[in-house]
Structure formats: structure tokens, C-alpha cells
């Protein structure tokens, strides 16, 4: 199974409450995905030359203070660190490539979840309510978000296997379904120099789109290639710096439902997750057609 949720807030004043609006959506998908949960939140962009790095430590007793000191000392760079238990968002103007190399060398135990100017990613094992509570999802502010609740069917239950996955800066993807050709896709992409972190089928889909976009496709063309090459069942929800995008496989095997309202656009696997949104009675509620691309911009 698995559940997906997405929320894009059009009403400026409601953007400060995006976390609060989203929380019942994510919790509503607990039965579809009780083993892990994750969230990508797109907030206020950092300065032009700065980047945010979402880092996952795995343990609650990781010494973030010492990490921050080591970072500033050895890279001679300014950094802002916002830790939340086993997770932290590092903001710095230092070159992303150099930061990545430094992290790999000095803190190989840290998992780099995302790099971007707007997007932070949080994901961990546990019920959606536990994960949301761990990282204060309720307090998130921002324009749009992409969330996932996981019921693993094809690979292990670990934080790294949880969604969202990223493919480039301020770009993420969540998936409900399963791909039958993930292994052959992975082998093909590895030959193209694309690096993988897990054996997860969603990561294969994510890297496929990353590869297509690296080859010059825009998102729509990349997804059209996806219809030809991704074999299996999928509803994919993607977040970019200014948009949410949704596709369902040509057989419509996996569900999705959309609510378009003057104040917001909300997407979920099932209506259960949309029922508690404000003024939902006046939203246009519909099911997306298979093999069609839906895009909403902020």
C-alpha cells in the first residue's frame, strides 16, 4: 500500500499554518502506511548563494553542537544549524559539492536527505503520528509540501527507504505502488553514472526522472518517458520549487483524489485525508485520470 499527501496553499495568510492543515491529512493515511513517514516542506528561500542541507543522524544522542563547530572550523565557513533530535537542517553559503565531500569524509554516518534553497526533508521509521511529533510537522510554515506514509512491500523498513526521495535541488518525489523493473532500471542508470543510495524501487523511478532531466527533458517529457519505461503500478507525486505534479500509471492501479479550492490544492490517496480541510464542501473534488499529468503552481 502506502499513502501520499500533498498540499499547496494559495491563500497567503494560511501558509503559516500549512503544517497544522497537513497533519490530519498525514495521520489519515496511517492505515495505508504505518511503518514509516516522511515530509518535504517548501518554505522561505535562503539567500542566493546559500543552500539548506537536511541531515539525518539516526540516533537522538548525536552531538550536533560538536558537528557545527567542526564544520565551521574545518571549512572556515559560516553555518546555521537547526537540530531536531536525530535530524538537522544545515544552512551555509559554502559550495554544495565541497559540503557533500566534507560530510562524506568526516561524518559518513550522517545521511544527506536533501539539498536546496527552499526544501527541507524529514523522514524516519514509525507511525505517521510519531514521525510528525518527532519533527514538529504541525509547526511547518511554507507554500507547499509533499508527504508519504509507507507500508513496505518490496524493500526493507529503514529511514533511508522511507519517502520522499530527491533528484536534484528542491525536487522530491513520493510513490504509492510498486515497480517490477526497478532492478533493470537501476542497472541501466548506473551505467549512465547515476548513483544510488538504496535498492528501493521508488528511488529507481526518482533516479530515472533525474537522468531524463539531466539529458535535457523538462518534467513533462521526462514523465512521458516514464510511462514507457516504468513497469508497474504507481501514483507519483512530485514537489518542485514552485509546483506540485501528479501522475497515475496507465492502468490506474493506485488511487489519488484531488481537492481544488480557492485557498488550496490538496492531494491524497483517499478522501479520508481531505475530509477535515477547511471548507472542503466547496472544493472541487475529483479523481485524476490515469496517464495524465496534473501540475499546480504556487
Amino acid at each position, binding site marked *: 500500500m502506502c499513502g501520499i499527501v500533498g498540499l499547496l496553499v494559495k491563500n497567503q495568510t494560511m501558509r503559516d499554518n500549512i503544517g497544522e492543515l497537513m497533519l490530519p491529512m498525514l495521520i489519515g493515511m496511517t492505515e495505508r502506511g504505518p511503518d514509516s513517514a516522511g515530509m518535504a516542506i517548501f518554505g522561505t528561500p535562503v539567500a542566493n548563494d546559500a543552500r539548506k542541507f537536511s541531515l539525518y543522524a539516526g540516533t537522538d544522542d548525536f552531538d550536533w553542537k560538536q558537528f557545527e563547530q567542526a564544520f565551521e572550523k574545518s571549512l572556515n565557513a559560516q553555518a546555521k544549524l537547526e537540530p531536531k533530535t536525530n535530524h538537522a537542517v544545515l544552512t551555509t553559503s559554502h559550495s554544495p559539492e565541497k559540503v557533500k565531500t566534507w560530510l562524506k569524509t568526516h561524518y559518513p554516518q550522517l545521511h544527506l536527505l536533501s539539498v536546496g534553497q527552499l526544501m527541507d526533508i524529514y523522514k524516519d521509521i514509525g507511525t505517521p503520528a510519531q514521525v510528525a511529533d518527532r519533527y514538529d510537522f504541525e509547526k511547518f510554515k511554507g507554500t507547499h509540501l509533499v508527504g508519504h506514509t509507507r507500508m513496505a512491500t518490496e524493500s526493507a523498513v529503514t529511514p533511508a527507504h522511507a519517502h520522499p526521495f530527491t533528484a536534484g535541488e528542491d525536487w522530491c518525489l513520493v510513490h504509492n505502488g510498486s515497480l517490477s523493473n526497478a532492478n533493470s532500471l537501476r542497472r541501466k542508470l548506473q551505467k549512465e553514472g547515476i548513483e544510488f543510495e538504496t535498492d528501493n524501487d521508488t528511488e529507481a523511478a526518482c533516479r530515472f526522472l533525474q537522468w531524463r532531466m539531466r539529458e535535457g527533458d523538462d518534467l513533462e517529457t521526462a514523465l512521458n518517458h516514464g510511462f514507457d519505461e516504468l513497469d508497474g503500478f504507481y501514483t507519483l507525486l512530485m514537489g518542485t520549487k514552485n509546483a506540485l505534479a501528479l501522475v497515475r500509471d496507465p*492502468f490506474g492501479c493506485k*488511487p489519488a483524489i484531488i481537492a481544488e479550492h480557492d485557498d488550496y490544492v490538496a492531494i491524497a490517496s*483517499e*478522501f*479520508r*485525508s481531505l475530509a*477535515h480541510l477547511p471548507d472542503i464542501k466547496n472544493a472541487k473534488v*475529483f*479523481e485524476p485520470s*490515469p496517464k495524465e499529468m496534473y501540475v499546480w503552481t504556487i
Partner: protein
Amino acid sequence: MDNISFDLDKKPLREVNQLLHGDAAGLNGKSFTIENPNGAHSIAVGLKSDVHVTIKGHAGYYAAGMNQIAKVTIEGSAGSGVAENMMSGVVHVKGFASNAAGATANGGLLIIDGDAGLRCAIALKGADIVVGGSVGSFSAFMAQAGNFVILGDAGEGLGDSIYEAKIFVRGKVKSLGADCEVKTMDAESKKILTDLLAKSGHVDVKPESFTQYGSARTLYHFHVDNAGAY
């Protein structure tokens, strides 16, 4: 007529369904309203007495599944498998229905005012289904008996491997499935269609505006020419 209202925000669905499964003598003739359905699964499944249940909003998966005798009205949309394996009675969805609406339904009438998703009327076994909007791909796959009326369009592979069910489509059919073909509408079929249009609130719609589809019956018996395909 007595009307009893349940609020699913306050009363667990299991208790509501158990109450609706009570002794028919005590339930017959009563009507029930279910408030705040909020997409919950399996609302009003397995009913077997002469009751009218109105669901005031969107229902989740399998709403009114296995229905017998009862009338169930869903004022919003319905999730996957609405009225699946219905035996008799009437299920009326005023919004749209998701995938596999009326799957394997044996009897009774399913009315969907909006569109229906993929695989509507899959393996239909004798029920009547009237869809006011369009239906998705692979609808009426292996439909064995019953009547399936579509006022809008049909997606790909309509009626693939169909047996003896009758399909009536007013709009366009994207493609027909294997062994499904256009039929000439005879007087008996026209009467069935006219009656179903009347029963489902489409009295003004002319039966002549529909094309009938059914089985070419070429898959009924093994053909030695096809031996290589197995």
C-alpha cells in the same frame, strides 16, 4: 417513516453497520442517515433488509457492498468497489464513483450520476448499472450477465472477453476489448434500455441515441488456430 441519524464523528462505523445488520422485522421500512462519512471504508455494507440509508457526503471503499433489498443513497462520491457483489436493491451515487464500481454485482440497480473510474461493471453477473457520465478503461471486462448503460463515453478495452451482458453507450468508445462488437438493438433490448433510463432519472434521454455492444462469442469455444497462443 422513521428516520434515525448516525454521526460517524461520534459513533464507530462498526456499531452503525452492526445495527443495520439487525433483525429485518425491526428494520423494514425504516430510513437512516449517516452524517460525516468523511471517506470511511465499508459504510453500509452487507445490508439485507428493506431500509433506506442516506450517506451525507463522500464514502470510501466498498460502500454498500453485497447489498440486498436495501436502498443506499450516497450524496457525495464513492471510493473503489461501490456496490461490489450487490445482490438486489438500489445503490445511488450522486457524485462520481472510483474504480471497480458494481464489480461482480449479481442483481439490483446501481445508479451513478457522475463519472465512474476504471473497470466499472467488471465481471458483472446480472445487475443493472446506469452511469450518467463516462466510464474509465477496461469496463465490463468479462461481464457475464446484466445491463450496463453509459450516457457519456467509455475508455479503452470496453467489454473485453464479455459473455452475455448488454452494454449501451451514448457517447464515444475509445476502443473495444477482445470479442466485443456492435450489436443491432432489438425490441427487447430497447425496452430494457428505456426502462433503465426511466428508473435512473433519465426519462428525457432517447434510447435511439445509444449504440449497443455485446459478445461476438468467438472466444466461447477453443479454436485450434489459436493453439499457438497458449
